[in-house]
């Protein structure tokens, strides 16, 4: 009976999760071409090529990995700190807390395409409202938000912050509600001000939530695709072409399926290592925190 209950899901799961995971691995060790009927096993050549300077995909792939890395490093601190501060504000005794929470979360339910085209207009160099406002306050330069570095990075991080920070805000807020209020009273009795009790009570109390948020935020930023695709088209040059964008383009538009499949597994390995390091680091602090 249990198997009957599971059968519909397992059929889907086997076809579109298990099979492709294995199939992708197979593609990555062949010379796959959609124009041939027979594919040949080539061992780890596609992987080796990715690590060999001068081979066809080496430079572009690592440039895209670099762009992904830049985006992760530039976006994650903001995506963690800003929601944390906003959550602390929302956790004060205020009227309309739910209304603010709802507003802050709202952009997250929009698709990246909506976010991309709306901000594409806001940030447009000639007709965008942001540069119009800059003119109004006396800044004459037309800032190339979506066209030139370093502005493209400011734009991509800013737009991502606008779009997704509501998610981390509500998660932090739930974490804050879970902190025992007696700890704040004890801190206050010891003469701790708001700042001291933030570092002595709030941050340690949020450690498990912090681990969850940093892990999921790093992964989300490392999987960035739509913002670059819609706002900067990966430019200028290929400066903001992320790994996902490059893999999708090579695999699905340029018919280089085998190298692209290998790239997706290399990216997977990278993300696994980053998550593991993050987990280790934070778990150590978690354990130290408990001893103290």
């Amino acid at each position: 009976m249990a198997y009957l209950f599971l059968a519909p899901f397992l059929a889907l799961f086997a076809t579109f999760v298990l099979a492709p995971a294995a199939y992708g691995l197979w593609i990555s060790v062949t010379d796959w071409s959609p124009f041939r009927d027979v594919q040949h096993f080539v061992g780890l050549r596609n992987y080796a090529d990715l690590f060999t300077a001068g081979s066809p995909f080496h430079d572009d792939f690592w440039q895209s990995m670099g762009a992904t890395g830049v985006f992760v490093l530039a976006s994650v601190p903001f995506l963690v700190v800003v929601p944390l501060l906003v959550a602390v504000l929302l956790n004060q005794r205020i009227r309309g807390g739910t209304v603010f929470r709802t507003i802050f979360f709202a952009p997250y339910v929009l698709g990246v395409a909506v976010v991309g085209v709306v901000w594409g207009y806001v940030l447009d160099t000639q007709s965008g409202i942001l540069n119009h406002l800059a003119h109004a306050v006396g800044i004459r330069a037309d800032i190339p938000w979506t066209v030139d570095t370093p502005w493209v990075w400011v734009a991509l991080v800013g737009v991502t912050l606008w779009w997704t920070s509501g998610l981390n805000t509500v998660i932090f807020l739930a974490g804050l509600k879970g902190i025992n209020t007696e700890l704040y009273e004890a801190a206050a009795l010891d003469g701790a001000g708001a700042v001291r009790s933030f570092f002595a009570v709030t941050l340690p109390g949020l450690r498990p939530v912090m681990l969850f948020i940093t892990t999921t935020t790093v992964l989300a930023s490392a999987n960035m695709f739509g913002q670059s695709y819609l706002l900067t088209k990966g430019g200028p040059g290929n400066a903001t072409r992320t790994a996902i964008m490059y893999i999708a383009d090579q695999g699905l538009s340029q018919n280089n399926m085998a190298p692209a499949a290998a790239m997706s597994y290399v990216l997977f390995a990278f993300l696994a290592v980053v998550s593991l390091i993050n987990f280790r680091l934070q778990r150590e602090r978690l354990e130290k925190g408990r001893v103290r």
Partner: protein
Amino acid sequence: MSATAVSASSGRTGAPARGARRGRGRFTARTALYVVLVLLAALIVLPLVWMLVTSFKTDADAIRNPYSLPSPLSVDAYRTLSGGQQPILLWLWNSLAAATIQTVLIVATASLGAYALARMEFAGKKVVFGLIVSTLLVPPVVFLIPNYLIVQNLGWLDTIFAITVPGAAGAFGIFFLRQFFVGLPVEIEEAARIDGAGDLRIFLQVVLPLARPALATLAVLSFLNNWNDFLWPVYVLLSPERMTLQPGLSMLQGAYRTHFAIVMAGAVIASVPVLLLFAIAQRQIVDSVTGAAVKG
């Protein structure tokens, strides 16, 4: 003792004991707090207001007066979109159909499967569950190329199957509902079993009605997810009449480079349904995204 209890119950805030410092300093701090929150809210809302306002402008008005109200008020942008080569009403319909079909698929298959994993004993249960959950950790890009080829082999490219069926195979629904089923008191089901009900009857008539809130939450999340999906439909949908709103918007952006009113009208059409859904199911959505983090 009672003093502690009182201050504890009233002090669920970041720095409660600071309330001891009363008077003017406290008043200005609270005012500053509201000012900051209102400014942040304005920063969130303004781009959306601007999207809406611009969508009711003529092209010339949008370029000449970027931040005034529309004058004249114009529905040209919407008219262009419903007529031209970008059949946006068809995209709206495709998006609604795809999101609904995928939601039904997910809720149906995940509730059955999750119930088996939560309540039934069978050989290989641990392995199956472990396998399902471990795929939550695999980034979606790993499935992109092989799934494209699988969908192609099935003859599903550029059909609604491509954007509904593969996406229903994700592990999240099973994981989410299993948590919920495990938390249900088992006595109700046992009572039904004593009354002679079989597994399927218990599932359909006892468990599913109890699980209605969890099913509704999963349905809302699945709908949003499918509605907003971007990368996959960009690559598996090819012809304009098969498009959904998200890849469609990207097409609009390319076709009407400087016709901002038209692009904004498209964005309004793509965002109103999800913002409405959010307005209705706000609590379920927020609770479900925080649940995983705070419990775990």
